Structure formats: C-alpha cells, structure tokens
C-alpha cells in the first residue's frame, strides 16, 4: 500500500478520497461495488466464469419456480384431520361412527405416518431454501474470485511486460555506459597488433585510474585477467564471440543484444570507472528506476 500525495499543509479530504478510490480502481482493475458484484453474479456471470456448470440466476429461478408452482408445499395432518368436514352434522356423525370404523381397521398408524410426513415436508422446505441460499452465496463468492483471478492475471501480464521493458532498458543503458566517444577516437578498425598495443595503453591508464578503495592485489588480478584475455582474443574464439572488428564489439552501438553479456562480465572496467560522464542522463534512467 503506497502513501498519499499530500503536497501542502492544507489537506483536502475529498481529494484524498478521490486518490483512495483511484488507487482501489487501479488495484482491482475495475471498481466493483458489492451491489455491482451481485448484479454481475446474477446477470453476466458468463463473462467471468465458465458458466457450463453454474447458473448465474439460481436464486431468481428458484423463486420463480416456487411462485409458479401450483403444487401445495405441504399439508397439515393431525389426528382429527380424517374426520373433519365443513358440515358440522357430518363431523359429529363421523365422530360417533369412529368406534365402528376402528372395528374394520386401525387408522392410528396412518394418521401418525401422515403427520410425520407433514413435518418432514416442513423441514425439507426450510432446508431447501437454505440450500439455495447457500448455493447462491457460493455463486457470488465464485464470481468474486473469478473477478479477482482475472484482475490478478491482468496484473501479472502488466508486471511481466514491465519486467521485459525494464530488462531491455537495463541492457540499453549498459550499452550507453560502454560507449565512450571522448575516450576512443572513431578510427577505422585497427589491425590486431595495433589493437593489442592500444589495449596496453588503456590498461596502463586503467591502472592509474583504479579506485582508491580497490586493493592493489584486486586491481592487479583484474589487469592480469584482462591481459590474458587480450592476448587470447586476436584471431581466437573470444574475438569471434565478441563480434570481431565490428563497432558493436566496443559496445558503441550495441543496444543490448546478446553480445553485451561478455563485456558486462568483465566487471568494473574503465568505462564504469569514468564516473559521472558515463552515467546515463538523470532524466532517463534515474527517474525511471525510481518510479519502478
């Protein structure tokens, strides 16, 4: 989480809130409120999810089905239900004849079974509503997760492209650092003998320019290593790998191709030791890296 930009002592709460909201939008990709997420879950789920297995309008469909259904949800069944009637004399008559009825069969288990069934129907109805609510909530959460995954994917893509860009820029800057227009005269490519002599001159100059904090032994070791490479290079595989006599071998026009790698591996060479003149312009690499 980054800090707020407060430029003066006079803070403006509305402006801060605008900053907060814009940052949230940047983070989320899109500024969805809870209501919008619900709306998305019920209407446009297929945009974020593979809707093969999940119906976005579950709860709505369920409600419609319940409302449209003409079948009774349950029935009331008590011990007197069998003998009830809208006509009172019939009710009395049935009551009177009840003992005779019981001579033919026992209605009590039937009454009990139907009563239990009625209660089971009740609990089923309650549970059914809960299940649908639960599924609906799961759909909401899945939608939310879908959106989050989508945003995360976008952020990963954005970060990888920024990483690519940074790598390219780093290589380009290294190329700029190696280019020394004042140090090396733009002469035609010298012969290998001349080049070796030039290197010796450079080496002597480098020795004079070694940073004060670099120990003598370190400096000597590096010079020795460079001398060995210098001797091997003319006509050898190292020279070919470095691009031969082409200008890019000096890094003058190299903007970051694979050839830049060997020269970088040489460590703090003369171009790096040259100090501010070799540094990239402040407005270029400096501010850019600070931003990233």
């Amino acid at each position: 989480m980054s800090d707020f930009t407060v430029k003066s002592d006079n803070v403006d709460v509305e402006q801060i809130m605008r900053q907060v909201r814009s940052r949230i939008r940047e983070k989320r990709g899109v500024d969805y409120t809870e209501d919008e997420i619900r709306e998305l879950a019920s209407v446009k789920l297929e945009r974020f999810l593979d809707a093969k297995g999940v119906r976005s309008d579950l709860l709505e469909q369920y409600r419609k089905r319940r409302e449209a259904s003409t079948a009774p949800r349950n029935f009331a069944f008590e011990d007197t239900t069998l003998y009830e009637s809208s006509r009172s004399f019939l009710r009395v008559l049935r009551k009177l004849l009840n003992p005779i009825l019981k001579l033919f069969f026992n209605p009590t288990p039937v009454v009990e079974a139907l009563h239990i069934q009625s209660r089971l129907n009740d609990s089923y109805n309650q549970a059914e509503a809960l299940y649908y609510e639960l599924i609906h909530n799961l759909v909401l959460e899945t939608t939310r997760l879908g959106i989050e995954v989508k945003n995360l994917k976008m952020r990963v893509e954005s970060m990888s492209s920024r990483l690519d860009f940074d790598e390219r820029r780093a290589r380009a800057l290294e190329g700029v650092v190696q280019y020394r227009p004042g140090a090396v005269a733009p002469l035609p490519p010298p012969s290998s003998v001349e080049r070796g002599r030039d290197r010796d001159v450079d080496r002597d100059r480098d020795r004079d320019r070694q940073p004060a904090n670099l120990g003598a032994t370190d400096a000597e070791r590096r010079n020795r290593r460079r001398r060995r490479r210098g001797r091997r290079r003319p006509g050898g595989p190292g020279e070919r790998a470095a691009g031969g006599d082409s200008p890019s071998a000096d890094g003058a026009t190299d903007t970051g191709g694979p050839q830049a790698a060997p020269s970088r591996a040489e460590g703090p060479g003369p171009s790096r030791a040259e100090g501010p003149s070799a540094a990239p312009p402040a407005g270029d690499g400096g501010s850019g890296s600070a931003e990233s």
Partner: protein
Amino acid sequence: MKLAVVVQRYGADINGGAELHARYIAERMATHADVEVVTTCARDYVTWKNERAAGVDTINGIQVRRFPVARERDPKDFGRKSHQVFNETHSMADELAWLDSEGPTSPALVDYVASPAAGFDVVLLFSLRYYHAWHVTRRIGSRAVLVPTAERDPAVALSIFGPILRGAGGIMYNSFEERAMLQAASGNQAVPGVVVGVGSDVPARTDPDRFRRRYKISRPFAIYIGRIDANKGCAELFRFFERYSATFPRGLDLVLVGNAMMPVPKHHRIHHLGFLSDEDKFDALAASDVLIMPSFFESLSMVALEAWALGKPVLANGRCDVLKGQCIRSNAGLYYDSYEEFAETLYALESKGPLHARLGRNGREYFNRHYAWPVIEKKYLDMFARLANQPHRPLAPLPGWMARRRRDLPAAAQVLAAIPAGAVLPEAAVARDRTA
C-alpha cells in the same frame, strides 16, 4: 429568564446521545438562566419503565423534575404500528397512535410544562420523535425551541411532525444535513434555525500512557466508543476489521469502549473494554491513532467531536451523511463505503502515516471554531433573545375527527426516499463544482 429543558430521560448515568446532549446544555445554560429539567421517571429507552421516583431532584446543581410514564411501551404493538405508518398508506390517527405507542407517554409532564403556572419563558425540547416534544409544542407553539436530534429514519417523514417543525419558535439543528433533511420534509425554512451541535467537556490534559499501562495495550490501535450494536454499524466494522487484520498483520488493533448489545468476535487484535469512566475514555482516545465511527445514522456524533478536540482523525462510515459531511467540512477525517476503502483509509490514518497529524490539527481547529462551549452558548442565547422579540404564535388546530381518520397519507419510508440525501458540502466545494 426561566428555561425548561425537556427530555425523555435524564441522569448522570444516562449516556444516550440526546440525553447527554440535554444534560450538557442544561448545565451550561444554568450560568445564563434559571434552568429546570423536566423529564420522566424512565431509565430504559425501550420499555420506558418507571425506575426513578417522581418529584424534584438535583443533579450537578440543576433542578430536575420527574413525571411518571403513564404506560410502558408494548414492543409488539409499537412494531406493528411502526410497520403500518412507515410502510403502508395510513391516516393521521394512525400516526398519532404510533406516537402514543412509542412514548414515553406522560400527560402529566406535558400539562406541567404547558401550564402558565410553571412560568417558563422558553422551553427547550429534545428529540423531535418522542411524545413529549410533539404534545408540548402543540400546546405552547412558538415558545418551544426544538433540538430535533433527528436521524434519517422514516419517523421524520411522518406528516404529524410537519406542523410541529413549522410552528416551533426556533430549531437548534445538530448538523447541516439534519437541517437540509428536516427543511425538505416540512418546508420550515421560515422558522429561525441554527446549526449548533454540542460541545464537550474535554479535559485539558490526558494520560495515554496510564491507559496503556492499565489496560495492557501496547500496540497502536483504532478505537470505537459507543454502544456496540448492529444498528450502530458494528457488525460491518467487525467484518471489515477481521479482513483488515488478516491482510495487515502489523496494522492497528481495535479497541472497543461501551456496552455490548451484540457478540464481540474473539480476536487477538480486538479488545473490548466495556463501559469506561470519562477519564479512561479520554485517555483511551488520546492513546489511539484514529476513532472509527461505523454508524449508518447519526444526527451528531459527540465522540467524533471529542476525538477532534483531542487532535485525533476520524474514520466514518461514508453512508452516514452527517459524519461524511463533517469529515469533509472539517478536513479532519476520512470515510469509507466498502472494505477496500476501509483498509486504505485506516492505513492512511495510522499515526505514523502522512495524514494523521494534519487531519488531527484540522480537527482541533474545527472543534474550537464550531463546538467550543462559548460558541455553543452564544448560539443558544442569540436564539432565546430572538424568541423574546417575536410575538407568540400558536399552532394551527388539528384536522377534524373525520379528516384525521382518512387513510390517504403515503408510507413514511416512501416520503423519506423522496427527500434528497447526501453530505452538505462546504460552500467552496460547491462553488468549485459549479465552476467545473
């Protein structure tokens, strides 16, 4: 000048918003007028059960006269009547029945305040929605000064309150949002009204370290002070804070001060301290990084003002117009509408953050400019002086028996929905928006 302060409950141990407001005003006005508090014997605002003796008492040097409540509230009956007037087409008789059912029904109190024998020059009535405010204002007309303490709930949209708001001598609003809402509901722009609010007795010195030692709280924390109740937005606060604490392990803790009306989640970063004395409360506030006000509906948050007085920023629920408006006008608090905003703003308001000190300073200035006691007292005295110069205006009589029973009034919730909502922005912001 003889001043009556009429309020539904009164006592040193009663800390409800309007009741505390009334006590502060009564005690402050006592230096300028002969003040008598007139109230009921009730302590519980749900049942209005008579728990205190009727008669005259003295609290902090103020004479308090108590009258019994004629009947306790029947919650079922009140709920049924509330549903009827808030959600269905109804009659004025239904609204009056709702008012009786809500209570605290005390005809003796109304008779006393309205009688010439009591000799009150001005009657200050707290809480528009209760029985006493309506009946007393109907009886005394423009001698009444209302302190409506109204929130954005359907009760304010009932038709019976329109004539009261238009007939009172003056209205002391708690906020610009409250004034805008009540003026839109009743069309009482002609009635003298002033946005006052209330001050607070904030101690000159606080000791945050003492609080930390006593309650063994070492980490930085945000504080909530008030009744811990779902109606106050605490359920959402807990939900948000649990997510926040999972995301920011080094973020703020949450300290809760007040009685719990709902379960407080067991969480190692949520500390519920219960009800605290004023000294502990102010020390806690001074020790905190930020005060959180999660309530959806407030007419004025005294604790927010106290936080500003102590130089603490406030994080308010953005769906509460009043709190949001105060945050914007004071430039001393932020607000949230969602979890993401909650997390971002809470992070920004931590004491080590860039905003904390600046918002805190703005809060202190805002409090001193608008809510210091001399400012509040002057506004009240100006209003009383204005009333003394205007002739007495009685209220228009109620409609006839048949008219009162005609079921042609729309549901109050429907009326309320048509009333414009939103924070009242500072003039500069409005002008800037117009230019833009």
